[in-house]
């Protein structure tokens, strides 16, 4: 059967998904990647894997979404995944910033207090 994706691209997608998945599982087992953040990656990779394995399934969407070729749709999907991951990262960064501001303020208060107590003791 004629596929909407070239065999080369399909093999590349499937291999890429498998290699990345192995990498992510190893990172999880080494405690370098929390499950919380890895799940999104694994779902994204599963999607890429499925696209490579059953290209006819997404071939249906190609013209529906307005792409000329299915391979462009694949690039589009990956771009969408990347943008979503970047958005999540931005949210995480903002949250981290909020927390470090709080830490810096509280630690600075403590240091000022300690200094004050020290000078009192010296007198």
């Amino acid at each position, binding site marked *: 059967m004629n596929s909407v994706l070239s065999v080369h691209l399909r093999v590349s997608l499937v291999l890429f998904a498998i290699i990345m998945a192995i990498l992510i599982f190893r990172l999880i087992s080494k405690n370098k990647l929390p499950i919380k953040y890895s799940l999104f990656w694994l779902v994204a990779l599963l999607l890429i894997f499925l696209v490579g394995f059953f290209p006819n399934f997404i071939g249906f969407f190609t013209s529906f979404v307005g792409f000329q070729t299915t391979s462009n749709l694949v690039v589009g999907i990956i771009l969408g995944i990347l943008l979503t991951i970047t958005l999540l990262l931005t949210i995480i960064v903002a949250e981290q*910033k909020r927390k*470090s*501001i709080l830490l*810096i*303020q509280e*630690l*600075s*208060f403590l*240091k*000022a207090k300690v200094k004050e107590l020290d000078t009192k003791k010296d007198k």
Partner: protein
Amino acid sequence: MKTKKQKILLIIPAYNEEENILNTYQKIIEYNKKSKTNYDVIVINDGSKDNTSKICHDNNIPIIDLIQNLGIGGAVQTGYKYAYQNNYDIAIQFDGDGQHDIKYVENIVKPIIDEQADMVIGSRFIDKKASEFQSSAARRIGINLISYFIKLKTKMKIYDTTSGFRAVNKRIIELFSISYPTEYPEPISTVEVLKYHLRLKEVPVSMNERAGGSSSIYSWKKAYYMINVILSILLIRKRGK
């Protein structure tokens, strides 16, 4: 005088202000002696790279040294937290660079003491005669534009939207110590106060041109600043308690 009963704190955020900080502090102390007021001072050193911290410590100026630079919002909030922890009735944001004149603090504080306002902004534009220094034309256009969008969002006309010379009462000290905008704090915090249906008042003040150092808003960042501020104002929602 009623003023004596209230605990009043001047929050002075300072970033590389070695040229001005001592002078600013001495003026406050002189003023306190002269007019028998009792304004306390806390300098928030926002990770200055110069001798701001050393000058303060050598001269026994009350100071909190932030261990990292937080930017104006984070620094000022540290001051509000200090005011909250130390049970101050009124906190005033006061610039360390000589732009603000201590003699106007009385006017700024008065509506709060008289319980006519929860927050008072020292404004350069209410009474044009009051302030010789009106800042540059470009800056004024920016301030007016922000003013327009604040009106659009809150139905209230605030003239000097970027003025950092402002006083708040106990209620707002608490609000600000819990949550204070880190980006573009002056206009954004103004809108938030209005959204809480707290009473805001502007009183005329005169400001001096900066004695030294440079303003925290760089010229090449101005357009970016404006777009950001306007977007933030339009997107602000009343925060849940």
